[in-house]
């Protein structure tokens, strides 16, 4: 499982509150990703990171921000949670090859189930 953990695993929060989800990896992988999974939509990329302090938006980034101050931690923040952000959130890493070559295969954490009431 590439040593990926996510916390919390379950969270229920109220509309308008800030929420931070944490992804932690133990193997110094450069590339990390946050996805959300909703029925009928598969996995959709929220944000990704290609190094410490290097992040970029995915296809569904509105309402989300990320930070990566250490290689091992990638944080996803919902500044003001809405009911439309009720979802399962997965963190993933890519196995980086030699000379910066990206290996496209991704390995996922166990997920965080977030409910916004």
């Amino acid at each position: 499982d590439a040593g990926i953990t996510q916390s919390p695993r379950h969270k229920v929060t109220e509309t308008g509150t800030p929420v931070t989800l944490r992804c932690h990896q133990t193997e110094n992988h450069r590339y990390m990703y946050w996805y959300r999974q909703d029925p009928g939509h598969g996995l959709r990329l929220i944000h990704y990171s290609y190094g410490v302090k290097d992040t970029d938006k995915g296809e569904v980034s509105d309402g989300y921000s990320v930070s990566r101050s250490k290689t091992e931690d990638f944080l996803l923040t919902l500044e003001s949670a809405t009911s439309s952000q009720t979802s399962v959130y997965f963190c993933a890493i890519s196995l980086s090859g030699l000379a910066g070559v990206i290996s496209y295969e991704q390995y996922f954490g166990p997920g965080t189930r977030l409910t916004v009431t």
Partner: protein
Amino acid sequence: GQQVMQIPQYQHVQEGEDFTTYCNSSTTLSNIQWYKQRPGGHPVFLIQLVKSGEVKKQKRLTFQFGEAKKNSSLHITATQTTDVGTYFCAGPLYNQGGKLIFGQGTELSVKP
């Protein structure tokens, strides 16, 4: 924008029957990957195909990459209850590093 479509969305089979899911991309892909997600679990990488026309097998699973590198299929022979889950294909977003675009997935249920 770039799209990856998967069909069917759901498939219900009797144990022992075969199963196939198809993946179609709106653009040519440099590679395609397949993942499996068990109910309540997380996606797990199965395989990556890179070459045009490539066929790879993993026990009862056969993966194909089309000649034009725009489509792919996963075929399971003689399904078992352990095959239950959702199968996703994914391809790299053009010129965007390691980012992937996923199909919507095919949910397979197997009746014993």
